[in-house]
């Protein structure tokens, strides 16, 4: 009998103790970040509207992928690192600076240039294995995470436009023609030389 009443007494007491803790939380700033009203991209912007204790997005946030084609060497390391095959790269060998119109003082070097660099963001699982594998830091995660699209098709990011692709292929074939011509000239010269020697 005594235990029964003790039980009830304890029940009431502990409930009120819990209630006091719940009541206390009326007097602190709410922790919830009001998305999208609060801008979480940087600490300053977040401070303007939000008084809680959570931080902004960190600098190394793993959002959707971005590629800097001017430093990409089309080495395919990201393709090999990707466990779900959501990256695909096609490349040709030509002087990249001429194709992309970037001016440099160094003479044009023949490097591989992407004619296709597609990432299927609908499949990507944001594991960062590609960014870790990249030797030049061309493929990076951005802080963007909002990417709603109506079609699955639209989630495929193509970083090389049709124009650039055509330019690269054109330049590639030009270079091939030039190289062939050079080779022919060289061969002709050599033939001349041997004839003269004779």
């Amino acid at each position: 009998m005594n235990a029964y009443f003790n039980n009830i007494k304890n029940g009431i007491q502990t409930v009120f103790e819990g209630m006091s803790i719940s009541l206390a939380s009326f007097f602190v700033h709410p922790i919830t970040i009001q998305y999208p009203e609060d801008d979480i991209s940087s600490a300053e912007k977040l401070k303007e509207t939000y008084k809680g204790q959570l931080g902004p997005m960190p600098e190394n946030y793993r959002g959707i992928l971005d590629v800097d084609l001017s430093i990409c060497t089309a080495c395919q390391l990201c393709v090999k690192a990707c466990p779900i095959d959501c990256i695909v790269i096609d490349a040709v060998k030509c002087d990249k600076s001429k194709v992309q119109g970037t001016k440099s003082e160094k003479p044009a070097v023949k490097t591989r240039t992407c004619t296709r660099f597609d990432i299927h963001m609908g499949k990507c699982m944001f594991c960062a294995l590609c960014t870790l594998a990249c030797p030049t830091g061309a493929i990076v995660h951005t802080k963007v995470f909002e990417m709603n699209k109506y079609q699955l098709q639209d989630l495929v990011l193509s970083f090389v436009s049709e124009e650039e692709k055509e330019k690269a292929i054109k330049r590639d074939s030009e270079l091939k023609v030039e190289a062939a011509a050079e080779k022919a000239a060289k061969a002709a010269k050599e033939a001349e030389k041997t004839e003269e020697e004779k």
Partner: protein
Amino acid sequence: MFKEHTLNTTEIIDLIQKNTQIEVKASENSYDASIIVEPKDVLPVMKFLKLSRDLSFKVLSSHTAVHDGEDFKLFWNLLSYEHNLETTIESSVPVVSPQIQSVCKVWKAADWLERESYDLFGIQYIDHPDLRRIMLPEDWIGFPLRKDYQSPEGYQDIENSRSEIDKRFKP
């Protein structure tokens, strides 16, 4: 913390052979030392391992199969909390007739582990109380973790085909 002498695999083998008169041997060339047991001897050996006072492997930590060529290799990972021991029992059954004695009577944990390896490898456990699929639906055809398994074209009304976008990424 546990500085006292723990038995190694050869000592465990000696104990098994002395007490049960069953021929077992140690496997070589692997990371974990394991004890190879003939399929017909699995149940008596397991019973001994659990009940022996020097060993008391009261816990079946894991059981699984590996499809290796013509055989299924079966592994039981046993633990003894009392003596802080760990050992692996290995056996193999042919793929054409994968039958082995269930160890459910020894450890209750074996029930679901055996159901899982029946589900994914098709190994028949003799005397298992309730051998049916656990992960896959009842009407699934084939055993997915076998190396020769072909993924089906579809299941009921769900088609299993690759989308056009996927084909562009990996033809």
